[in-house]
Each structure stands twice: as C-alpha cells, then as structure tokens.
C-alpha cells in the first residue's frame, strides 16, 4: 500500500528540478494543491523506517524546498497517510491560516540558540487574562510554565532581538545539559548582521555557554497560530 509522506507546505510549487526522495524510500515527490498554497509529499511504496537516516533525508528535502520557495512550513516528521487526500483535505480547510503562517516565515530562516549555563529560570510573568473556565486557566498556567523567564536575556540579547521577526523560548532538555533554548526567526537579509551580533552576545556572557545553530527551515514557527512575540524595535522586518 502506498504511503503518502508529508514534507512541507510551500507558497508556490517548487521549481521543476529533481528532488530525490530516495533517502525516504522508493517513490516520487508530488505536489498537492491546497488553493492558495501547496503541500509537497513523497508518494512512497511504504513508510520509511524511523531512523536517523530518514530524519536526515526528510530534512534534506525540506531544506531543498526552502531554497527554492520564499515561504515554507515544514511538516513534522511522521505525518503519513494511505491516501493523498487524507493529508490535503485537512489542510485545505485551514488554507487561510496556512497563508497567514506562510506570510510569517516568508524570506526568513530559523536559528536555534541554546544555553548550557547561566541564571536559574523562572516562569513567564502572569498577565491579566480574559475570563475563562478552569480548563482555559489550566492551559494558561501550563503555557506559562513551559515558557521560561530567562533573567537578563531581554537586555543581553537586545541587539539580536532588534533583528528578529520572532522569538520562541522554551525550557531546555536536562538530559542534554541544556538550560533553555530560543528559536529565532531571522530574515535572510539580516543574517550577516545577526552573525556579528551573535558573536558579541556570546562573548558578553561566557558563563551562559551559548551556542548558535546553523540557519535552517522554520520548523518551530510552522504551527498555525503559534506565538510570535516580536521583541525589539526592528522586529517583523
């Protein structure tokens, strides 16, 4: 039975150049029309084995798509269905939201900042919320707990924030020694300036042990309705 493996939503179909899905298995890449955008899928003989090679193959195709498209929303690894329409129909119903999300990430890349040291984290400050039931209050508390307050990051990272379109901050994975991580949505036009600022920021807080990942497709900003806390006067470039 054929396995339709979702890869990314793009603003326009990719240029007709060979995109090889062979790292995922035997098959071909197909473009499913969603209306104002397109879903790129791999039509495979069977779903790939879940291993690092398949992760790399999925990522490589998404990166290639990101090179040719102005806006790309990477799909999470593992979204597979027996029929193409099982993937396309739910997305067609969300086409307006997807176009908004594509607008958010257009012309921008994601850079992940990780801190292996630095101050202890706190919860995000509580803000006055509109009324809601117990379930809504619980979810807001959980959301605040998952989004840490990093003391001093606003000031220390100010010159980075001025270049960002958006930032998402999460608690780190203690199994890796990571204290917290920040996903930065950086306009391509600002990458060199960002790199210079990153070096200065890293040098200013050596005990934080900051690392900056390579630019890549905006996985962290692909979900619809995701938080986009633009920080800094130069944000949303």
């Amino acid at each position, binding site marked *: 039975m054929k396995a339709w493996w*979702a890869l*990314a*939503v793009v603003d326009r179909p990719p240029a007709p150049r060979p995109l090889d899905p062979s790292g995922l298995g035997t098959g071909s890449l197909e473009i499913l029309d969603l209306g104002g955008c397109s879903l790129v899928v791999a039509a495979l003989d069977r*779903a790939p084995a*879940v*291993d*690092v090679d398949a*992760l*790399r193959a*999925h*990522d490589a195709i998404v990166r290639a798509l990101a090179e040719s498209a102005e806006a790309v*929303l*990477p*799909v*999470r*690894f*593992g*979204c*597979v*269905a027996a029929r193409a329409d*099982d*993937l396309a129909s*739910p*997305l067609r119903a969300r086409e307006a939201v997807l176009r908004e999300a594509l607008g958010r990430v257009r012309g921008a890349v*994601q*850079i*992940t900042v*990780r801190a292996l040291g630095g101050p202890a984290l706190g919860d995000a400050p509580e803000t006055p919320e509109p009324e809601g039931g117990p379930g809504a209050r619980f979810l807001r508390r959980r959301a605040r707990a998952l989004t840490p307050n990093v003391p001093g990051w606003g000031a220390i990272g100010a010159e980075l924030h001025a270049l960002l379109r958006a930032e998402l901050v999460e608690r780190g994975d203690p199994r*890796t020694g990571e204290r917290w*991580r920040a996903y930065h949505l950086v306009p391509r036009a600002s*990458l*060199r300036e*960002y*790199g*210079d600022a*990153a*070096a200065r920021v*890293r040098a200013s807080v050596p005990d934080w042990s*900051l*690392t*900056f*990942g*390579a*630019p*890549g*497709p905006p*996985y*962290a900003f*692909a*979900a*619809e309705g995701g938080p986009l806390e633009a920080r800094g006067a130069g944000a949303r470039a």
Partner: protein
Amino acid sequence: MSDRRDRDPLGLEGDGEVLPPDTSLLDLVDNLLDKGLLIHGDLVLGLAGVDLVYVGLSAMICAADRLLPGERPSRPGEPSDER
C-alpha cells in the same frame, strides 16, 4: 572570504566551543520530532530505543518520559481509534 561567509553566515565555522559535535543531530531531532506542522494522519515513531507515543489523528506527540506520572505510553503498532 565572502564565499566562506556565504557558507557560514554566523561566522562560527570551526569553532568547536560554540557548536558542539552533536549540534546538528540535536537540532534534527528537536525540529523534526517536536516541531513542524502537524497534519491529520498517523504518526508512528520510535527512534534509537527511545519510546515515543503512537498517536492517531491530530494529536500531540511527546517523549514517553514526559508523560504525566502514572500514564502508560502506548506502543507503536497499536491500532488507531480513528478510521
């Protein structure tokens, strides 16, 4: 120089202190397994001995050890309720 900067826009290439050897794998797992657009469909995941939850349609995935205490993670291969 400009070619190198194009390849390495953050100017951090070769700086082992900034980019740990496993950064790319960490980013890969972080992005592809925990981020990205979620579509209705079947997610069947298990990677390198790490238990990941098998889910049916349009549900969140998480590592087994992040579940609430007392939860028993379902195993890959268990049938989905949705069809």
